[in-house]
């Protein structure tokens, strides 16, 4: 690990999602499915069995008409760093089928290693992990559109968002061919970031001062989901609405979110 430090500073890929801009259109979800060979079934209305690596939650302020407010919240995998890479899911996997990559901060999933115990799913408070309850089937000629960059998953294994790692690999390959040792910010963007019509998602290296996410995460409107648990997620949200920011975590009645000390940024 120390050698790597000298060689190249570790990256920490992360996201900032502007909830004021997010329209809840669902493009991120579909872009992700299309990029990552996510299968579909005839009936996908049981959302607790429907694989959507990034899911758009609809949250409300629970006030009666006409004071009701609604906000959409896209939830990819948070790629929790936890404490020194001790993310909730990685630490529990018995077969080392999921890994926290110190060099990128990406939580990966090795489908061919996973034997489907689903402990990681229980560990994840965000429900970012999905199980393949069925064998994937692509009807008609649809196998033709499968991307060779991402291996389709077999029944009985867990899968999740990997920040489009295959795109990172492609970007690295390209840079390598061109004799560069590193990639530019815009060379590696996730499919959801790219597809979002509202430009609500910003993706980049949270450690890199020149990346847009570096500045955005410091906004006074920025918050993360369930910070109090110490999961230390790498997805930041921006909202100008206080009730939305407050919905990001749990608070005991009378607690002031501002006075709560949260784990390190």
């Amino acid at each position, binding site marked *: 690990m120390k050698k790597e430090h000298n060689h190249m500073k570790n990256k920490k890929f992360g996201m900032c999602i502007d909830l004021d801009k997010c329209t809840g259109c669902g493009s991120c979800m579909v872009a992700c499915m299309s990029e990552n060979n996510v299968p579909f079934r005839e009936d996908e209305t*049981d959302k*607790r*069995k429907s694989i959507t690596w990034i899911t758009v*939650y609809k*949250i*409300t302020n629970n006030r009666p008409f006409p004071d009701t407010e609604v906000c959409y*919240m896209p939830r990819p995998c948070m790629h*929790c760093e*936890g404490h020194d890479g001790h993310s*909730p899911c990685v*630490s*529990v*996997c*018995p*077969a*080392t*089928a999921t890994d926290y990559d110190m060099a990128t901060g990406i939580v990966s999933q090795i489908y061919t*290693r*996973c*034997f*489907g*115990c*689903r*402990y990681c*799913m*229980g*560990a*994840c*408070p*965000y*429900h970012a*992990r*999905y*199980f*393949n*309850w*069925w*064998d994937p089937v692509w009807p008609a000629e649809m196998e033709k559109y499968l991307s060779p960059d991402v291996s389709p998953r*077999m*029944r*009985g*294994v*867990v899968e999740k968002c990997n920040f489009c790692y295959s795109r990172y690999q492609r970007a690295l390959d390209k840079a390598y061919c061109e004799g560069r040792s590193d990639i530019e910010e815009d060379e590696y963007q996730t499919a959801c970031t790219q597809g979002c019509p509202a430009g609500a998602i910003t993706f980049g290296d949270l450690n890199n001062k020149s990346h847009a996410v570096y500045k955005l995460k410091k906004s006074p409107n920025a918050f993360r*989901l*369930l910070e*109090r*648990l*110490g*999961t230390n997620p790498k997805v930041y949200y921006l909202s100008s609405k206080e009730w939305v920011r*407050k*919905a*990001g*975590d*749990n*608070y*005991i*009645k009378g*607690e002031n979110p501002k006075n*709560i000390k949260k784990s390190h940024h």
Partner: protein
Amino acid sequence: MDSALIPKGVKRCPLPIFILGIVIIGIVLLWGVYAMILCWLKGLNQTNMNDYYGFALWIWADLAIIALGGGAFFTGLLRYIFGLDELKNIINYAVLIGFICYSSALLILAIDVGQPLRSWFIFWHANVHSMLTEVAFCLSCYFSVLAIEYIPLVLENRQIDKIPFFHHLGHNMHKVMAVFAATGAFLSCFHQGSLGGVAGVLYGRPFAYREGLLVWPWTFFLFTWSAAACGPCFTILITKITEFITGKKLVKDNVIDLLAKISGWMLGSYIIAKIIDTIYWATVTAPSLGFNLMDFYKDNSFYGIWILIVEIAVCGILPAVILLVPKFRQNKLLLYTAIILASIGVCLNRWVMVLQVMAAPVMSFDTWALYIPSWQEIATTILPVAYGIILIMISFRYLPIFPQEKELNSIE
């Protein structure tokens, strides 16, 4: 017909009745096997589990039967290590019950994983930081210990015992049984504990999460303790049921009383620890994560605070008191009440630590997830029960499980 196989000096029911019993239970077993095969061939879509309920009925059944099978290790520990010699009269049965519980647990696990053919990855690619790895290792090792403890009993069958090799093998194994039992106790402590750790380490789940000692959350110790407390209760319960069905007294009261008394002490001390743990969790741990105790028990149609009260008061304090007071535990009815409540209590605890963990929402905008198992899940959960009954029937018929049986039931 099979009298040559039946231990000398005891009476067993006629063979046709025995076979009829086996057939009846066998049908239930086959139903379970059918469901199991469905799960293996078609995958886990046969269950009602979902992405919120990755752990459900099966994991609960695993945890519960292992806790109930805890009688084997604890009785073994008392008998071989602490030298409580009276317990030799019940240790065989404790071992058999343990063996059934553990083999069932392994079977259920083999159905529960999405890719059963890859289950050995848990050993081969072990992540030693995972509680589940610890569970898998200790569980399978301890299962071999139970097998080793069960083998000498099998070898005592009248016909097998005639073969000199097996006769001597059984004899030799008896001699070193203390070493095996010690190893078993060591392994058992760890896997009972790590089963507790499975939920306790989930720091993303405030309902389950507990602080602890070194790498082990408090649930680690609570699970071991409760298994040691309630496992023997279950052993007594099964013994009593066997006595009822066979219509014979099989174990002397003083043995039962001794085991019940020890259980009482264990249960009493456990429940105090559990109460302290609950209070600390409810007043310190959970609030620091933004949760009130009642947040875990509201807004849903099943998980109310009643479950905590039942677990601690009705199935904890009450049986502990009964078992601790000699007058109470010597009253048959109260004893039965106590052992039944203790067994339910530990199952309820495991239920809460698996299913309620999954059901309770964590994100402020998430909702409770309730779940009803599919028939395939229920059938595969009943499968080990049927299997256990059959194994007990066969073992009881052909093996000298209860050393005191002959003395208590002399044949005219």
